[in-house]
């Protein structure tokens, strides 16, 4: 039922120590939704394969959104695919994160002006945590993005979010 999730106004000693444990567990096992959209997916596969081995960061591809934490949108998001991506994101369990990989999913990429069928950035349908630039980004760049996401997860808290 989430008895501790966002139930406390300020961070006390229990919440902060629990935070560090939970965040460590979460950032060390960021399971990835197993799907690729375009040429970026080839680089994503290279990052998963033995040379770069994303699995050493705990990134394991899973075939269902119920079991994953991070969705790597790797490639051109067409308008047709955008509704599917939205639905897949909805079906992921919280906490959930999105890495937008490559120019196409960042902003439409080479299709930014005349791509009649391309969504101009995946952040128009789902919230994005980390943008990885490149066309396509090298596997090192994707891993850099992943480590940025890990930094973000490390600083999360169970406490209620302050409204600025």
């Amino acid at each position, binding site marked *: 039922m*989430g008895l501790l*999730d966002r139930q406390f106004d300020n961070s006390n000693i229990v919440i902060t120590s*629990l935070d560090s444990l939970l965040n460590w567990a979460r950032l060390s096992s960021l399971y990835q939704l197993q799907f690729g959209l375009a040429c970026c997916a080839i680089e994503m596969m290279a990052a998963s394969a033995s040379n770069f081995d994303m699995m050493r960061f705990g990134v394991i591809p899973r075939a269902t959104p119920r079991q994953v934490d991070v969705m790597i949108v790797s490639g051109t998001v067409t308008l047709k695919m955008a509704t599917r*991506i939205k*639905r897949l994101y*909805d079906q992921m369990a919280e*906490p959930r994160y999105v890495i937008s990989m490559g120019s196409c999913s960042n902003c439409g990429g080479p299709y930014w002006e005349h791509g009649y069928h391309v969504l101009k950035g995946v952040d128009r349908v789902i919230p994005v945590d980390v943008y990885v630039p490149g066309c396509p980004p090298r596997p090192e760049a994707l891993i850099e993005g992943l480590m940025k996401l890990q930094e973000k997860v490390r600083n999360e808290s169970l406490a209620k979010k302050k409204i600025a």
Partner: protein
Amino acid sequence: MLTDFGRILIFLLIGAVFTGGGLVASWLLRPRRPYPDKLSTYECGEEPIGEPWVKFNIRFYVVALIFIVFDVEVVFLFPWALVFKEMGMFAFIEMAVFLGILIVGYAYVWVKGDLDWDKPSPKVSRYVKGIGVVSDETVDVNEQVAV
């Protein structure tokens, strides 16, 4: 001090605490913000259509039964093959009787026609001189009218 079953009891207790503890911990810690789109059935991102409780053809049941019979037969064949050299002719006749019983059952299923699968017979429209392209039903009607 501990009997063998005592050790098994300790295993069971540790297992129960481990799985139960995991469930309780996640119940305490997980965020719970359900909404209809999140609870919808996963169909690779497609909109789910229809019910998951689809009726299967009853013929799959027969096929599954036959499969299990021959599956078990193979399980019996392996240990039999191991001791075949020592036991000799006796083992051979024993297994022949066993296989014979199964083969009678298989023949029975075959004769009853449970292995025959319904094949589709699509109605193909064809060209009839003086009438045009017609389906089979139309031809039948026309023939009846002609008579």
